[in-house]
């Protein structure tokens, strides 16, 4: 089965910097229209990151709510040392990490991991229901959180090393070595069973 193609992956890096600056300043003063615009612009990319990191839709919805709640509260302290999108991603990653730490080992409904919309496509008559897309999602979800973060930011959100380093709060070199580790782990998890490691 060919993997589904996402139609809307492009990150809305919102136009010229001065426009973003005035939007942030207005939002930090409590301007409702500006806050709404930030929410409208960033809810989808932030959602993609959260649901890819957490997997469970109801939990991801709670986290999304917290992320924007905290972002709106923190906007008055925004120092323009990074773009708004990297700042939003950073809050999202931190919220996911804190959420998973509080919850302990995740217990996620099977249909959430597999994605209910893929079940029908990937069902094998008389056999398991796992197709390549499901296996891939499960393999990414199975990575330790730090490694999952870099895979999601790199391949789901198409961030550069510099941007990832701002989101993750570590140097680009660390991002590169973490990405190597993540990809070799991913390869191991996707290797057909019985094949030597």
């Amino acid at each position: 089965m060919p993997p589904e193609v996402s139609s809307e992956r492009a990150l809305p890096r919102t136009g010229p910097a001065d426009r973003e600056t005035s939007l942030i300043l207005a939002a930090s003063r409590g301007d409702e229209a500006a806050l709404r615009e930030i929410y409208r612009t960033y809810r989808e990319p932030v959602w993609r990151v959260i649901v890819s990191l957490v997997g469970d839709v109801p939990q991801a919805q709670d986290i999304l709510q917290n992320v924007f709640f905290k972002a709106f509260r923190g906007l008055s302290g925004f120092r323009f040392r990074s773009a708004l999108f990297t700042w939003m991603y950073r809050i999202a990653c931190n919220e996911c990490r804190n959420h998973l730490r509080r919850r302990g080992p995740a217990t996620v409904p099977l249909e959430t991991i597999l994605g209910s919309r893929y079940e029908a496509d990937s069902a094998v008559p008389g056999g398991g229901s796992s197709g390549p897309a499901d296996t891939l999602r499960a393999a990414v979800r199975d990575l330790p959180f730090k490694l999952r973060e870099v895979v999601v930011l790199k391949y789901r959100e198409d961030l550069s090393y510099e941007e990832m380093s701002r989101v993750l709060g570590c140097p680009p070199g660390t991002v590169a070595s973490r990405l190597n580790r993540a990809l070799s782990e991913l390869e191991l998890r996707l290797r057909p069973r019985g094949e030597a490691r």
Partner: protein
Amino acid sequence: MTLSCFFARRRFVSYLEGRVPPGPAARLERHLGCCARCSDLFTRVKAGHEAGRAFGRLAPVPPGRFPAFDEVRGPDRRPRARLAAFAAPALVAAAAGIVVLFAVNGRHQAAGTGGAAIGPAEITPSGAFMRLAIRDFATDSRRQVVTEGYVQEVYYDEQEQTLHIKLGENAGETGPFVICEVRDARRLTIPETGSRVRVYGRARFDAQPGRGWHEVNPVMEIAVLNR
């Protein structure tokens, strides 16, 4: 791992994406030709990179519906019409709160020790300074708060150029904490590490890179309960 391995490995993904200039790319290829461990790792990273690209092309699980804007902006940002209805009593209550705060401050200074238990009258009925346990900062959206805890650390924050007091629920360095940001240290009595204090101020969340903590900022008053 040699230094060449270190630099080669950092370029694996960039190389796979064709973003390494010809000179360094040729050096990387030469290194892969003579280093079995890097070559083995490169093969795995290459397969993982292809898997990562395939993962990026998968449609994300849809949210069903996104929370409404009103659900994410927080309860403390009321629409103007509702705000007008609350404005007058809130102003009166805030003024009462400030009077009470000065009274508390004056009493602490006169007593010289602080430490008196906070009475019901010191928290105004309007909630001008609402009690908030440190562990509840993450879930509560109240702005003007009073919280209690143990001073775990007092330090000068170079980035903010303000004095920070790390206040924990426990005397040890475990458990929930908030950072209390003191903008004008001359106006306040700075408590010692290990003392139990009550801090008045505004609750915020600092979401800057490297932070991501709840804070009381600015601190308006500190009462030392015991040393």
